[in-house]
């Protein structure tokens, strides 16, 4: 059943040398060499090369990125320093100005207070003077009246006013002391 085509199987001897079979064998090896070269080694090596290239690219771009990041870091550090500096300046400036302003305000207030006090003093003094004059006049009037009553005759007001005034002045001086 199995040997449909060959009624009697023809076999080579165990060792039989044939020229053409060797040539075919050599050609087979050469053909396989070409097959492997073209269909296995070439594509795989191309892929490996592409991968190497890609890794190189990645490395170089990583290098660039690292350099850039470092530059950015330095730049930002410098910026931060400057910002801190200026913040300090702003704060100290503001403090200084605030102090100045405060002093100014206090000074103004003091001046105003002084002015107000002076005016009040003046007013008080004036009022007092006025009151004193009034009292003085009243006293001298009363004195003249009393004296008239005592003396019984009319005293010439003009004659004695000078004397009474000096008397009141003395009184004032004593009371002040």
């Amino acid at each position: 059943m199995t040997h449909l085509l060959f009624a009697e199987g023809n076999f080579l001897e165990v060792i039989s040398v044939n020229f053409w079979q060797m040539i075919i064998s050599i050609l087979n090896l050469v053909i396989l060499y070409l097959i492997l070269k073209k269909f296995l080694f070439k594509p795989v090596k191309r892929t490996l090369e592409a991968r190497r290239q890609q890794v190189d690219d990645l490395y170089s771009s990583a290098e660039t990125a690292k350099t850039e990041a470092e530059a950015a870091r330095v730049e930002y550090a410098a910026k931060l320093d400057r910002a801190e500096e200026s913040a300090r300046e702003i704060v100290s400036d503001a403090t200084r100005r605030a102090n100045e302003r405060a002093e100014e305000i206090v000074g103004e207030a003091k001046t105003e207070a002084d002015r107000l006090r002076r005016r009040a003093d003046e007013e008080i003094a004036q009022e007092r003077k006025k009151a004193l004059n009034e009292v003085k006049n009243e006293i001298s009037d009363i004195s003249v009246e009393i004296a008239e009553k005592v003396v019984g005759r009319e005293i010439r007001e003009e004659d004695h006013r000078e004397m009474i005034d000096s008397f009141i002045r003395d009184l004032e001086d004593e009371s002040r002391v």
Partner: protein
Amino acid sequence: MRKTEPTKTETIARDADEAPISRRDRFLTRLWFVLMLLPLVGGMLLNLFLTPPSEGITVTGAQIYFTLRLPFENLPAPIRDLPITESQVNSALVLLFLLFFCLFLTQGLRTRGKSARQVLAEFIVEKVEGFVSSTMGDGYSSFPPFVCAILMLSAFSSLLSLLGLYAPTSDINVVGGWAILVFFMITHYKLKAGFGSYVKGFLEPIPVLAPFNVLSEFSTPISMAFRHYGNVMSGGVIATLVYAALAALSTAVFGWLPGFLGDIPFFQIGLPAVLSIYFDLFSGCLQAFIFAMLTMLYISLAAPEKESA
């Protein structure tokens, strides 16, 4: 925020690998896989239909399918006749298998590919290149495919016997052809140093030894061929003998069993598989390795000393 503005590195990574595997790639991969298996299946069918059942213990060479006769009557018979045998057919099947195997492995390679096929393809290429450069040194960049061809053709030819096919490597003509090719390459590299020094090489260390030097020159390919051929063929012979012995033993021990049970060669189960692992798998691969190794050694010895760059 990073999503909307990919950096350069992210773009590179994306280009090559985030593209999905195309339908074409997938289709071709399957096609190569099927085409890769076809020669093996075809070989088994051929074997099934064309090989007559053997009677008794016969140790023969390859089966002759048909004989081509060159139309030159005055040529001597060995040159005029070209018997097409199992060796030639099976070698062609191995070639076809390896062709589609390569296409299968390298279909849709990617820079960042991690598929098993790609890993295997890169493994083969890198191992063979490392093997060649460690044995021969630098400067033989065209050799890895050749060494790989020897390794694969030899190993897969021997491994055909695992499928029950005739291993082309157990035909002296096949291995002899390779050895002759290697011999020519050795001579080519020796001639590179100049014809004078090639001839002078035979007269060393003393001119009296010249005949022996010539003899040893020609014994190189012969020993290579016979070593390989003998190992594979003897494996086949031993397997045949063991099979026959086990069949006889089975008949002797279990022959009394009624009906077809008595005809089953029970002892053929198990032991031949172990033998096959040694003779087909181990010995076949080992001989392929030895043949490739010797090729590289002889050629690198033959090559003139490289000018130190």
